[in-house]
């Protein structure tokens, strides 16, 4: 079985890590040849962090174009651009999230990512919510569920949880601060709003994007082993994401005996049970989240109950070895079954293109309308700023005495400035 997984690059990330894990496991099966095809042309082959995978082949797009595969698998919406350029008997799409949600409503990528779900491919996905959504979007399209495994060597499950009765509540916040949907700063604010003693650790690969934050420790980027050690030293993993695929980090925490406080983000339902192995908090409710953390800090019996149950949940979660057996079986099925109906897929895609054009047109009209309304205010404001009294006021603003006198009005002026901008 000759399989190609298409990746943009090999930069360390959750999504890439999942694909590499599957490729690694599949390459150990007798008779399987697995290739990672890096499709982003401008990037050289970065193999950093994956040197321990000797059985895997890594090819550039150009190199892969000359080869023939049994199944070619796109793993990110942009990699579908190259998918059909490869010569393969079957084409598949490993959907790790509904990737259009990573972009704001007015970004063109949002439409592009959504349209790729209309391709005539067999789908493989890692979460039940994605499978159910795809079943609604593409009824009749083959879709196989292959949930992510956990590296049980690195995130090994201890026999029991060490009870924390004396130390402050150890809160771990993880995520990329530059991804708006991870809400890392929101989580830090929630932890900072706690009244009970706590020790907050933020794991972040991009310190610059994080800025100055109210945390006891900021660490990262960390290897998987370092993360496992950190989870072991934590009581709670705090994640307030609004977009997730399979939602891996709290599950990794479960494996090391940490419970979680999370939003009901997609993917949570795979393993988080409120009041059993973790706590659910509401959207945008930082105060409520802080109160839940305070509850765990005060009620150590509850904390231990949740942590012990989290460990039990982790114990039943499949390993990568098991997960990749499902992947192997799914790829074999895809290779055996007829190709999905291209006509139906094309019809669906064109219908979506048409509705996307309508939506995009509506956005443009809305923007033009906003610009027209704004221009009505801009001219009078510019005239006002040019008048002598206004110039005097602006000059006085720099005086220290005026600054002191105007200080109580800061909330009002700040709001006015925001409105003006």
């Amino acid at each position, binding site marked *: 079985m000759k399989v190609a997984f298409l990746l943009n690059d090999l930069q360390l990330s959750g999504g890439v890590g999942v694909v590499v894990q599957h490729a690694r496991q599949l390459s150990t099966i007798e008779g399987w040849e697995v290739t990672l095809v890096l499709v982003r042309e401008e990037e050289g082959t970065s193999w950093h962090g994956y040197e321990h995978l000797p059985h895997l082949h890594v090819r550039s797009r150009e190199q892969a174009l000359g080869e023939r595969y049994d199944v070619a698998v796109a793993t990110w919406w942009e990699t579908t651009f190259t998918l059909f350029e490869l010569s393969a008997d079957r084409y598949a799409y490993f959907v790790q999230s509904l990737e259009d949600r990573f972009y704001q409503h007015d970004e063109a990528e949002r439409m592009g990512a959504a349209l790729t779900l209309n391709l005539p491919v067999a789908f493989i996905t890692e979460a039940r919510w994605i499978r159910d959504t795809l079943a609604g979007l593409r009824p009749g399209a083959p879709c196989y569920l292959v949930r992510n495994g956990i590296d049980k060597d690195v995130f090994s499950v201890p026999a029991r949880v060490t009870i924390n009765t004396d130390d402050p509540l150890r809160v771990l916040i993880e995520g990329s601060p530059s991804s708006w949907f991870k809400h890392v700063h929101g989580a830090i604010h929630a932890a900072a709003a706690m009244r009970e003693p706590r020790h907050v650790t933020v794991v972040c690969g991009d310190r610059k994007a994080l800025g100055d934050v109210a945390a006891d420790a900021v660490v990262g980027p960390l290897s998987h082993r370092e993360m496992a050690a950190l989870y072991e030293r934590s009581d709670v993993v705090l994640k307030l994401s609004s977009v997730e695929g399979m939602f891996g980090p709290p599950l990794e925490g479960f494996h090391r005996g940490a419970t979680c406080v999370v939003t009901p983000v997609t993917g949570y339902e795979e393993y988080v049970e409120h009041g059993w192995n973790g706590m659910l908090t509401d959207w945008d409710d930082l105060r409520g989240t802080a109160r839940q953390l305070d509850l765990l800090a005060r009620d150590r019996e509850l904390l231990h109950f949740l942590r012990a149950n989290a460990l039990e949940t982790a114990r*039943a979660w*499949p*390993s990568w070895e098991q997960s990749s057996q499902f992947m192997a079986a799914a790829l074999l099925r895809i290779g055996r079954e007829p190709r999905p109906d291209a006509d139906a897929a094309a019809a669906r895609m064109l219908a979506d293109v048409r509705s996307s054009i309508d939506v995009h047109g509506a956005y443009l009209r809305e923007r033009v309308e906003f610009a027209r309304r704004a221009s009505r205010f801009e001219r009078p404001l510019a005239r006002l700023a040019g008048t002598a009294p206004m110039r005097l006021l602006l000059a006085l603003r720099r005086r220290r005495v005026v600054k002191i006198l105007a200080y109580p009005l800061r909330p009002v002026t700040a709001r006015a400035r925001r409105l003006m901008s």
Partner: protein
Amino acid sequence: MSDWQERITHETPPAIQAEHELRYRLAAPLILAGGRWADLGCGNGVAAAAALGEARPAHAVLVDVDERAAAAAARELGLPEATALAADLTDPRDLQRISEALHLGEGEPPVVSCFEVIEHLSSFVPLLEWSSLLAQEHGVTFLISVPNDAFWSIQNPHHRTSWGEGAFEELRGLLPAEQTLLRQIALTGSALVGWDAPAQPYELVVAAGGEGTVATHFIAAFGPGQQALRSCALAVQADMVEQRRWERQRENDLALMQKVAVEHEAEVHALDVKIIEQGEALRERTVWFEEWRTYIHELERELGRPLSGASQEELPAAGPAEPPA
């Protein structure tokens, strides 16, 4: 694999025996329909024999990783002419041997039961491929079951893979689309019987299932016979004497193993201490030997003799020997 841990024997607690027997009762109408029957992971055949009662299939293929278990199953079932096969279900060649033993295409289509086996396999992919092929191309009906590991607070060391609702959903997505799915759930109960009354059957009405019901096992059937499966339940009298014996045996075994482990730990500790002592002694003797060697070399230098134990490179440069002082 110890019988008392993973295989069903006559000493296994009645509740667990009943749980296994019920799965075979589910399959019994298909097993007795006239076609060949293969039982993958047949074990000692205790549960199958109990479920089939007096009836027996025309031809059985009893498969287990342990040849002795397959032979024991043939004895337990009273099927001396059954084909007892020792096979590794992760090996496509062994699966081919089972196909041959089923005589595909002859007579009624066969039925294959595979209860509580998948979780013991290092790879279930060959079995899935093989079973899907046989179901779709040869009309073989398969019944498979996996446990719900999420509701066991201890990890079973014999299980190579972990199963729960999610993993079962992954599995069923890979089986042929026409399938029957069942949840096996645990029942508990009690009975009031007359003081001197003999054993007699009781008719029970049990409300079982519904939303939020937690399964102990998940069962999937596929192939042409899957539609014939019907929900069923089984309650048996608890054998308190056997149960107590079984529990005591486990406790005793555990206590014994703990004692052995403690003894081994003590032995390992003693060996560690010995290694440290010997290391110390070795270091002392090395120092002592070095001192003696230095002393002997000094004497040899004074006598102008070559240094004993020294290589050619370490020998003093050739020159006129100085007379000893």
